[in-house]
C-alpha cells in the first residue's frame, strides 16, 4: 500500500467532500436525457455515498487496493491533453487499415468521427456517442441498460462509475444485421489529476454479427489519472459479437475496466483483453451464458513491467444446458510488475452438458516480478466437462539454450520466447494490423 496519493477515506462526512463529490452532490438531472436514465444516475450517486470502499478482507480485493480506483481527490476531466502527432497518426493509420466505422471519444461528451460506414445505417443499426444514443433511442436502450451492472448489489466503485459516467458509445445491430465493416472505438483519458468514466453499450440483436475494437489510449501525463470504464454486451439468439480491447493507458493512469456480457441461445461472444499500459489496472470480465447453445471465448494478453500491477477477475457463468466457455489469460511480467488472477466457473444445477475451460499462464521474467493465480470451479450439475489450471514459470533454460545454439543472443532469444508465449493469444486477434501493432508493443516493452 502506498500512501500520499489518496486523500479521501471511506465514509467522509459532508463537510469533507472533495471537489468531485461536491459536484456529485449538486448533480441535477439532464433534461435532454430520458427520465429513467436520470433516475438511475441519481440512484448511482446515492449508492456511491452510501457504500464503503471494499476492504482487503474482501476476497476479490485480496491482491488489489480499492482506493487506487477511488476518484477521491481527483476532479472530473474537462480537457483532453491531445495526442502527440505520432500517436494520433498511428491510430488513424490503424483505423484506415481495419476500421471503417471509427470514433474517437475525447474527454467527456466530445466525439470525433474519423470515418463512417454506410453499411451500418443501411442495415438499420448505429454507432453513436452514448449521450446521443440515450437521447435519441432511450426506450430502445432502457431494457438493456437496466440489466447486469447496475450498482445495487455491487460495490462503491461500480456506483462511482455510474455516478461519474461521462461519455462512451452505443453500438446497435438490429436483427439479422451482419456488419462487414469493423467498428473501432477509441477512448481517451483526461488531463493529469482527473477521472474519466466512459461506458460502452453493445447490443447485437438476434442473428446479427459484428467485430468491435476498443482502444483505451492514454497520455504520458505527470500526475495520477483515473479511468473507470464499463462495457455491457448483449448478444441475441444466434448473434456473434467479437470484441478486442486494447488498453495502452499512460504510465500514471489507474484503470478499472468492467465488462459484462449476456449471451442468448446459440450466440457466440469472443472477447480479448489486451493490457500493455496503465499503472494499477483491474480488469473484470463476466460472461453470463443464459440460454442453451451459448458459447463464450475469453482471452487475455498482457505484458507488464516497472511497477505495473494488473489484477484480473473473470466469471464464466453457465446458467443453461449445452453452453460452452473457453478462457485463456496469459501475462508476461518484467521488472517489479505484479499480476494476479482470480477466476470462477459457475455451473448452475440445470446447466447440464456444460463444457468449460479456464487457463491462466504467467511468464515471470524477473526475480522481483510476481504472479498470483486462483482459478475456481463451482459445479452444481453432474454431466459437465470442466477443466482449469494455472502455471507460472520463467522462460525455460532448455529453450534458451536451443535458440542460443543458433547464434541468437540471450536478449533476443528471450524476446522470441516471450513473443512466442503470447502468440497463442495474439493469434486470436482477428486482424493482422492490430496483431502487428500489439507485437510491436511487446517487443518495445521487452527492450
Amino acid at each position, binding site marked *: 500500500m502506498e500512501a500520499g496519493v489518496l486523500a479521501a477515506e471511506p465514509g467522509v462526512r459532508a463537510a469533507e467532500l472533495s471537489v468531485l463529490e461536491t459536484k456529485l452532490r449538486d448533480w441535477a438531472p439532464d433534461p435532454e436525457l430520458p427520465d429513467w436514465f436520470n433516475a438511475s444516475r441519481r440512484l448511482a450517486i446515492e449508492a456511491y455515498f452510501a457504500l464503503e470502499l471494499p476492504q482487503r478482507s474482501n476476497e476479490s480485493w485480496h491482491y488489489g487496493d480499492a482506493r487506487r480506483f477511488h476518484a477521491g481527490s481527483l476532479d472530473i476531466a474537462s480537457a483532453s491533453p491531445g495526442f502527440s502527432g505520432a500517436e494520433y497518426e498511428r491510430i488513424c493509420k490503424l483505423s484506415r487499415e481495419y476500421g471503417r466505422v471509427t470514433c474517437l471519444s475525447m474527454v467527456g461528451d466530445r466525439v470525433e468521427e474519423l470515418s463512417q460506414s454506410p453499411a451500418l445505417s443501411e442495415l438499420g443499426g448505429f454507432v453513436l456517442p452514448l449521450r446521443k444514443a440515450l437521447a435519441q433511442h432511450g426506450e430502445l436502450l432502457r431494457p438493456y441498460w437496466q440489466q447486469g451492472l447496475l450498482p445495487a448489489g455491487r460495490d462503491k466503485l461500480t456506483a462511482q462509475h455510474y455516478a461519474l459516467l461521462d461519455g462512451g458509445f452505443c453500438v446497435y445491430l438490429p436483427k439479422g444485421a451482419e456488419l462487414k465493416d469493423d467498428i473501432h472505438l477509441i477512448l481517451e483519458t483526461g488531463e493529469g489529476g482527473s477521472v474519466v468514466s466512459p461506458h460502452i453499450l453493445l447490443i447485437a440483436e438476434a442473428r446479427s454479427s459484428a467485430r468491435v475494437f476498443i482502444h483505451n489510449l492514454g497520455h504520458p501525463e505527470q500526475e495520477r489519472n483515473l479511468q473507470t470504464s464499463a462495457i455491457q454486451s448483449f448478444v441475441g439468439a444466434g448473434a456473434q459479437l467479437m470484441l478486442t480491447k486494447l488498453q495502452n493507458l499512460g504510465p500514471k493512469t489507474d484503470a478499472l475496466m468492467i465488462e459484462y456480457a449476456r449471451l442468448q441461445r446459440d450466440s457466440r461472444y469472443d472477447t480479448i483483453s489486451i493490457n500493455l499500459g496503465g499503472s494499477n489496472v483491474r480488469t473484470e470480465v463476466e460472461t453470463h451464458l443464459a440460454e442453451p447453445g451459448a458459447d463464450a471465448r475469453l482471452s487475455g494478453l498482457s505484458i507488464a513491467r516497472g511497477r505495473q500491477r494488473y489484477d484480473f477477475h473473470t466469471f464464466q457463468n453457465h446458467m443453461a444446458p449445452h453452453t460452452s466457455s473457453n478462457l485463456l489469460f496469459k501475462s508476461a511480467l518484467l521488472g517489479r510488475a505484479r499480476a494476479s488472477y482470480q477466476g470462477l466457473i459457475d455451473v448452475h444445477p440445470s446447466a447440464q452438458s456444460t463444457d468449460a475451460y479456464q487457463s491462466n499462464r504467467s511468464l515471470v521474467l524477473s526475480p522481483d516480478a510476481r504472479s498470483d493465480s486462483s482459478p475456481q470451479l463451482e459445479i452444481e450439475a453432474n454431466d459437465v466437462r470442466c477443466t482449469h489450471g494455472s502455471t507460472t514459470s520463467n522462460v525455460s533454460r532448455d529453450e534458451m539454450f536451443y535458440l542460443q545454439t*543458433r547464434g541468437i543472443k540471450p536478449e533476443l532469444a528471450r524476446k522470441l520466447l516471450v513473443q512466442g508465449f503470447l502468440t497463442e493469444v495474439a493469434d486470436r486477434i482477428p486482424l493482422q494490423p492490430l496483431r502487428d501493432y500489439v507485437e510491436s508493443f511487446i517487443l518495445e516493452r521487452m527492450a
Partner: protein
Amino acid sequence: MLKIEGLRASIEDKEILRGVDLEIPAGAVHGIMGPNGSGKSTLVKVLAGDPAYTVTEGSVSYKGMDLLEMEPDERARSGVFLAFQYPMEIPGVSIANFLRAAVNSIRGPENELPTFQFYALLQDKLRELQLDEFWGNRYVNEGFSGGEKKRNEILQMLLLEPGLCLLDETDSGLDVDALKIVSDGVNRMRSPERSMLIVTHYMRLLDYIAPDRCHIMLDGRIVQSGDIELARRIDSEGYEFIRTGVAETNV
C-alpha cells in the same frame, strides 16, 4: 580445426566425460559410436555449451579459440552447430522468424539478409530437403513427428552453414527415404573448410556419409579409433570385443 584434450564434464555431480581426447582436422568427417550412456551426446552438448553440464577439466580449441570460455551463442556465431537429438518445441515462434533471427545473428548486424533474400534462400533449402513451401509458417517443432524434427535440424544446418557440424543421432526416427534426404544434405555440406562429428548407433547413416574416421566411446572416453571398418565390426559384433579389449589394456 577442433582439438579436445582431457575433457571431463559432469551433470549434477555425476561425471559423464572422463577425459576425452579427439582431434578433427578441417574438412574431415568423423563418426562416433558407443553404447547407451557412454557419453556421446554429452560430448556434443558440452561442445555446444549446454549449461546443464559442468566442465571440470580439459580443453577444447576450435580454430584456435578456447571454446569452453565462450557462451553457447558465441560458439554458434563462430561456426559451431549442434543438430539436437531431441530438438526443443517452441510454441508460438514460427520457423521462419526463428531462422531469420538465427541467420542474421550468425551473419552479424552489418551483413543481415534483406527479408526477401532470406525467404528466397529458405525456399531453396526447403526444396533441397523436400519440405513444403509453407514449412516456415509452422511453430518450431511443435507437434512435429520425430522425423520432421530431425529434418528441421538439418534445414537449420543448411541455412547457417556452420564450420563445425555436430550431429547427435540425427538418423534415429528417420525412415529410409528421410535418411537418404538427410544424408544427401549432409554430403552436400562437406567441404575442405568444414568439419563434422556424427554421433550414431547405426551403420546405415555412416554408409551414406562415409566418414573419414570412426571413434568408439565407452564410459566417458574414446577408447578406440579406426576407419569405417571399425564401425562395421561394431555393427555386426556389438561392443563386447571393445569392452574386452579395454579390460585387457587396463590389466
